């Protein structure tokens, strides 16, 4: 593709942004005195800041580039990641799970597992989570560097080093507070940087009606019925009738239930933001407040991808074609930026893009260093040291985590849609974990052995399923089939991931129940107070004005989401 040339004003905007990011870290450095300041912001963050950071931490490469790529590759069905997946899951975490997370004073998700079950369950989760965050942050870094290389002609390695150094600097200085503050800054930048692109794109297409008409050509050219790219539910009857290759059961169960709830409810990367909130009410409102902008995000991140594919097909060859003959969907969003924005706004758009990568990386690195320091180092390697010792370890883990991410960045080159790869990792780690949490929080009979061996079974089931199936047209290896036989071929990577998640969750769920019934309880009712639903006093929000109560917010959020689903049915 032809490279974009940035003007002086574009570089000026980019530099000012970097100055602000580093400046915030510099100002906040003097507030970091204890390890809790560094890892949990001293639990002092107001709900609206925690809420914006809650979505911004997840607003990394997977969101902006991945959702844009999926919008181009799969069309409007991508909105299920929001309106079927994320929003209901965020409501669930705010209403049902936050009381246990925040109330138990656990400092991390693995630490909750230690309080509820035992040390080995925590260790297992801490290690798999650490691996996963390193991968996610590597994806962000790879995507950013690749993008800058393709679009601006910057050297790949220089971009990796530059982004790594900036993120390292502001986390090192200000810890989680600095990461959270920058995430909020990045949130506004992403909204303000992408909105003009979406508005211009829609105007060019002739509004939503014009875009739908162009997407009909996209759908019929690819061999689907006319509305396949512009409706979310209508073509879910069978796997063959939509570009994602998923039928309604795989969608609702795999994405809606297992993957989304697994991610939003158990992933420490997002839960950490709510744990840093200043009070229980703030912690519960964090995911609920976050859900409001979140449900409008498809317009910001999916729509550019849909506009890109419409232009690609009707105007001919906008997206560069990869070596396997398919368009390089990951470039959908950057190509759109270059297509519509003049010098000036282009700088703002690119800055927003870089901000999203950096918030994704920073989110992963802050979660990584907390889990590493609390759940691996403090509990297994060097227990009983002074707080200053663990604070120094946190600083070291930041450097170490970023170095590992750089290494992971190179493993992601094999996927033409990075969202596919990320969902694969989630299917292995988060999907079984969600079964463990559901049982642990709502069934007091669940035992430590049950949880641990259930998790092992679930992860093994994910590996076995992944090893025996392949997405269409893929070669045996990282994408599946490595166990020798290919028993089933899925129409797409996404369908394969959804089913891997369903198998992993079910295996973990039933194995945990069976093993718990066969083993003795290791925690008495008394020890489980505040950790299990039936043994925790209900939170009454009666002293609050009705419209400020979490339950009211939850109902409003779910109602609006339902309306969106119906409008774009």
């Amino acid at each position, binding site marked *: 593709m032809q490279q974009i040339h940035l003007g002086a004003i574009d570089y000026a905007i980019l530099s*000012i942004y970097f100055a602000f990011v580093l400046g915030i870290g510099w100002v906040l450095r003097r507030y970091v005195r204890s390890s809790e300041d560094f890892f949990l912001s001293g639990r002092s963050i*107001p709900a609206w800041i925690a809420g914006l950071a809650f979505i911004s931490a997840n607003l990394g490469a997977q969101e902006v580039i991945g959702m844009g790529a999926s919008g181009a590759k799969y069309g409007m069905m991508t909105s299920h990641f929001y309106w079927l997946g994320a929003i209901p899951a965020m409501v669930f975490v705010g209403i049902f799970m936050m009381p246990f997370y925040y109330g138990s004073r656990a400092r991390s998700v693995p630490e909750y597992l230690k309080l509820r079950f035992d040390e080995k369950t925590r260790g297992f989760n801490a290690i798999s989570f650490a691996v996963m965050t390193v991968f996610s942050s590597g994806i962000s870094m790879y995507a950013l560097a690749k993008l800058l290389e393709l679009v601006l002609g910057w050297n790949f390695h220089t971009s990796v080093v530059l982004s790594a150094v900036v993120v390292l600097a502001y986390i090192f200085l200000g810890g989680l507070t600095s990461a959270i503050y920058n995430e909020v*800054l990045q949130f*506004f930048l992403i909204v303000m940087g992408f909105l003009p692109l979406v508005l*211009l794109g829609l105007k060019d297409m002739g509004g939503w009606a014009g875009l739908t008409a162009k997407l009909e050509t996209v759908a019929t050219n690819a061999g689907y019925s006319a509305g396949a790219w512009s409706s979310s539910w209508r073509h879910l009857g069978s796997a063959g009738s939509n570009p994602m290759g998923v039928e309604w059961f795989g969608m609702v169960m795999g994405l809606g239930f297992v993957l989304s709830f697994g991610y939003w409810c158990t992933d420490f990367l997002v839960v950490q933001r709510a744990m840093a909130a200043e009070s229980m009410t703030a912690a519960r409102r964090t995911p609920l407040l976050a859900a409001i902008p979140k449900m409008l995000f498809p317009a910001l991140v999916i729509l550019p991808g849909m506009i890109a594919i419409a232009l690609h097909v009707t105007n001919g060859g906008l997206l560069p074609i990869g070596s396997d003959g398919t368009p390089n969907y990951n470039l959908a969003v950057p190509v759109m930026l270059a297509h519509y924005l003049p010098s000036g706004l282009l700088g*703002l758009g690119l800055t927003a893009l870089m901000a999203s990568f950096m918030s994704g990386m920073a989110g992963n690195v802050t979660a990584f260093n907390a889990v590493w320091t609390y759940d691996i180092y403090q509990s297994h390697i060097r227990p009983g040291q002074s707080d200053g010792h663990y604070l120094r370890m946190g600083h070291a883990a930041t450097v170490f985590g970023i170095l590992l991410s750089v290494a992971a960045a190179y493993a992601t080159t094999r996927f033409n849609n990075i969202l596919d790869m990320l969902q694969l990792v989630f299917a292995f780690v988060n999907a079984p974990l969600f079964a463990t949490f559901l049982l642990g929080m709502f069934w007091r009979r669940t035992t430590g052995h049950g949880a641990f061996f259930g998790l092992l079974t679930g992860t093994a089931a994910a590996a076995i399923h992944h090893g025996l199936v392949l997405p269409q047209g893929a070669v045996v290896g990282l994408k599946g089939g490595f166990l020798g036989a290919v028993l089933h071929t899925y129409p797409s990577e996404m369908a394969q991931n959804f089913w891997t998640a369903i198998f992993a969750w079910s295996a973990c769920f039933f194995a945990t129940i069976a093993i718990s019934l066969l083993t003795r309880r290791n925690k008495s009712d008394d020890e489980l107070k505040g950790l299990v639903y039936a043994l925790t006093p209900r939170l009454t929000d009666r002293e609050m004005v009705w419209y400020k109560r979490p339950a009211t917010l939850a109902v409003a959020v779910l109602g609006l989401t339902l309306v969106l689903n119906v409008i774009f049915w």
Partner: protein
Amino acid sequence: MKLDLRLPIGLMFAIFGAMLTLYGLVSSDAIYATSLGINVNLWWGLVLLAFGVVMLVLGRRGTRGGESGRGDGAGGTR
């Protein structure tokens, strides 16, 4: 509040808004062929400037309240 977050956000967007507005005034019309002939730098620059100023004003008001106004300033905006 350690640092009212609305101040840096407001400052950054006010700077961006002012830069884009000025650039929109001096740049030639030719570069707006990509953006359907609309001078997006000028218009969006004004939007950003307004957003930045509102954030700055809110942030200043929150900070001036001092420690007693802490809840209003930082947490009470929503």
